[in-house]
């Protein structure tokens, strides 16, 4: 790996100051399982000059529950999230999502903040420099997205305009379904933001001087059914081809509230608002579920090689609504 300067940060404030000092030439290391790959393969046009280790900040890896909800420190590892009895009891959706990430070894060091901020897995974007040079795609300031007329089997089927890479985070869609908010620290102090508003087509709203400090999840209704489904070719290791998270509350088969979020189908996580609206007040049946799935994917326009993702997404939504696996 090419050399960089390395700095340990010991508080959020210090991190923000360091980010300001290095003026966009620094990257945060919140776990490293994504970052180190990015650095080793030299995929970025500008190699960072400084790596700021934030794992050295004490107290950011806690899970605290009160009556209203739960606060998760940004450095909480995915393994700790999976092992937390509190999360298992009231926020099982997040546990399920975290449990599908990568492998046990990765989950022991990958953090929730890192998982939310990870870079896309698009294989054009990630093409390693050592075999003929990295690819300067639209996301890196190039003119076009090579996936559009290329090998786009894993790319976006909706919502993409210039870059067809998808957001790979499994925990993001779980948190959006749960209505979670982020505490973001920056030079002007902290701000809170729903996870739903965090992502943009080319990444996130996080600017180069900010970091996620914590995640807050309001306590969902105890009768709400939380479900997470992720379609991959293999259970471990793989990033989602399609993932879906939902919280559906129903009484004797009649749905009165639903939140459905899709991952890996678009550059950002996608709320299936039309499907959610449609389901309210409906008696759940296979037909209703299929119709909801259709509405969820109504905007989809697959590329040359990823129409199958649309079918899978519809199937997953349908199965979620029906409570099937």
């Amino acid at each position, binding site marked *: 790996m090419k050399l960089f300067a390395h700095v340990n940060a010991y508080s959020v404030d210090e991190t923000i100051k360091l980010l300001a000092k290095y003026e966009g030439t620094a990257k945060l290391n919140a776990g490293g399982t994504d970052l180190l790959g990015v650095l080793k393969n030299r995929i970025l046009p500008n190699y960072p000059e400084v790596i700021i280790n934030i794992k050295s900040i004490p107290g950011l890896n806690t899970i605290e529950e009160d009556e209203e909800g739960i606060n998760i420190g940004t450095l909480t590892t995915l393994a700790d999230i999976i092992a937390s009895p509190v999360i298992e009891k009231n926020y099982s959706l997040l546990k399920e999502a975290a449990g599908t990430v990568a492998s046990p070894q990765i989950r022991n060091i990958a953090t929730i903040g890192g998982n939310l901020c990870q870079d896309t897995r698009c294989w054009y974007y990630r093409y390693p420099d050592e*075999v003929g040079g990295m690819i300067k795609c639209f996301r890196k300031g190039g003119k076009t997205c090579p996936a559009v007329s290329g090998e786009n089997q894993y790319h976006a089927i909706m919502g993409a305009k210039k870059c067809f890479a998808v957001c790979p985070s499994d925990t993001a869609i779980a948190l959006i379904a749960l209505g979670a908010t982020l505490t973001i620290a920056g030079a002007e102090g902290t701000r809170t933001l729903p996870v739903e508003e965090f992502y943009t087509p080319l990444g996130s709203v996080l600017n180069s001087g900010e970091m996620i400090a914590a995640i807050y999840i309001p306590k969902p209704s105890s009768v709400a059914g939380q479900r997470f489904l992720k379609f991959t070719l293999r259970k471990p290791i793989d990033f989602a081809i399609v993932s879906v998270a939902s919280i559906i509350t129903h009484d004797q088969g009649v749905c009165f509230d639903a939140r459905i979020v899709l991952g890996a189908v678009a550059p950002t996580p996608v709320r299936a608002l039309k499907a959610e609206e449609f389901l309210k007040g409906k008696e759940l049946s296979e037909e209703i579920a299929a119709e909801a799935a259709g509405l969820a994917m109504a905007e989809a326009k697959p590329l040359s090689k990823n129409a199958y993702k649309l079918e899978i997404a519809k199937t997953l939504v349908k199965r979620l609504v029906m409570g099937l696996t």
Partner: protein
Amino acid sequence: MKDYRFIGKSTPRKDALDIVTGRTKFINDLTIPNMLYGKVLRSPLPHALIKSIDTTEAMRLQGVKAVLTYKDVPDWKAGFPHHVRILDSKVRYVGEGVALVAAETEDIAEEALRLIKVEYEPLPAVYDVEESIKPDAPQLYDQFPGNVFPQDNVVFGPHTLNEVVIGDIEKGFEEADFIVEGTYAYENIPNPLPPESPGVIALWEGTDNLTVWLASQGPQIFKAAFQRRMGNINLQSLGNPVGGSYGSKYMSWQYALPAVALSKATGKPVKFCYGKAEHLAAFTLRLGSRIHGKVGMKKDGTVTALSGDWLVNSGSFSEATQGMVAVGCGEAQLMLRCKNWSFIPKMVCTNRTASGQVRGFGGQELKCALTPILTMGMEKADVDPVDFFKKNYVKAGDGFYWRDGDWWVCRGIDYSNAINQGAETFGWKEKWKGWLKPTSVNGAKYRGVGVGVHGNADAGEDVSEVYVRLEPNGSAIIHCGIAEHGTGQRSSICKMVAEVLQLPLDRVYVTPTDSLVNPIEIGPVGSRGTYAIGGAVIAAAEDAKRQLFELMAPKFKVKPEDLETEDGMVYVKGKPDKRIPWIKEMQYYGSIMGHGRFESDFSIPNFMMIFTEVEVDTETGKVDLIRVVGTTDVGQVIDPLSLTNQLNGCLGSAGIDSAIFEETVLDTRLGRIMNCNMIDYKWRTFSELPEMEHSILETPFPTHRFHAIGVGEITPSPGPSAVLMAVSNAIGVRIHDYPLTPDKVLSALGKIGSPMRRE
């Protein structure tokens, strides 16, 4: 069955302790004083002329010891026929070497690569095998007009098999009850992907001394091939434990030659190990295989004629494509007792990283494309595929052309018993519901079964030469140039010698894989470990024993053949009480050297059949492998655990899973391999293992001392086509586009349009 002391019993691998403690030294674990690190600058373009290269700045970087371009490297040529230079003025695939750097650290070498300035003149590129042979296609090599590799070569001698033409093809079709015809392909070019990427350390000293430490399945092959081409130098090749090869690290020149050139230029040892991205994007893959075929068949499943054009996509060069095609042609005949053939291969070069040797060696690539054509016929005749394969697999007395171009007559055994027992173990009768019919349906999940067959006549291929040295202290040293690449063969040959000489296993050793110490060894390839290498080992042990008895006989006043030996002592048969230790006659300064040699014998084919059960989710298109049963007859098991390991290997090394999710994804606009990392390249994990069971028969082969034959190499090859059959049966639609990823399954089910075919 004879009760042996070691043969057939599970014994710990001789190298087990080193492996489980991490002490085994693979190539990248070695360090040599003053060692430099080699790196390769790789082409961004699939086809281009190098107009200029400026290495000045790279040379100036502190710690850089050499920068070589096509102008500086020695003119050693590799491949068949010899056509691949270490570096050339023309690049033919993305990832081909453009310049070599040797530096004090890997990081410095890497930075130096960035300082090399190259100007290219891009040329149009071609990737599809049929596009490549069109008259107006871009031409890769001046010497191979039409992008076709010549077939007249010396891979397997002057008559190397280059087609199957037997009988009267027209008459054969006339005799058929019906004819089926189609084009099928196995072109997902999976990567065998051993965990240890290719690597080497080379040290060139003085004018003509070269030592290479190689991660290679056949380290002596490198010496045999290049010693003369390098000017008849003193070449010592040292084999290291190999971290997986599956055939791919046999012809090691692709990674050895750059290190040798750098060492020659610097006079220092140079280590050169591929990174995983290079391994996935710029090393050898399986062959691409496409067959336009036509089969004449009788209603009872008798094949009366087979004609076809076999288009073999070798990528940017031929490592040993002619050899793989020869063996594939031979293996087609083993699976099919057909009297009339006209099967014509064509070997084509295209602008992607080359295809090289992989477990299955041409035969798997051929089967995967040929079997779907045969199944069309089986379906039409409504013949059970198990019955079809049983009827058609080679039997004693059947003749076939093998790779050397000679006509061989099978002296092997009838594998029908193995087929019957495998079918029984799998429950084939209960699960087989007929062509395109699922075994069971549960909601959206459809199950289906399929079966495939494979075998080769290479278990007795090529020459092995071995010395077994008896030491006065009652131990034996096997001088054999075999490398350990995972099969446990170095331990198994110890068992054979221990059995012949009745020595404790811990008194039998193998010399290091060193060409200065050992006679010629072709290597553990083509399932030849047990029969060919084992044959030479056993002969050497027997020869040593004969000499021992000749030495000891006067002491006992009997004839040598009246003697026995056990645990380093000799006694007269039937009188085990009076024993004399070897040392008594050998003296402490004595030794006995037994010699054994094995010469090719292609008359004993081996056999492997694989049954698969899959479950297809018809709403997502996902294929899950539920159950695998392998069946074979090995004559005599040498080591039960090593055998089951090898049989379980059918899933890996671009085997069965190349029908399910394994593929190399090539972007044919850029010429780049997109999934060159181990997340996007799919491999089977611990989480989703199918049930695996084997039925292993032991019908003695009379021609081997322990009546055994090897099967390791062939285990994956029947698998992919068996999966196609199983999925087709599950979903009721013929499907044949490897691998059967969800897009293809959903498309076959008519749920989505056909995904745009890759060119």
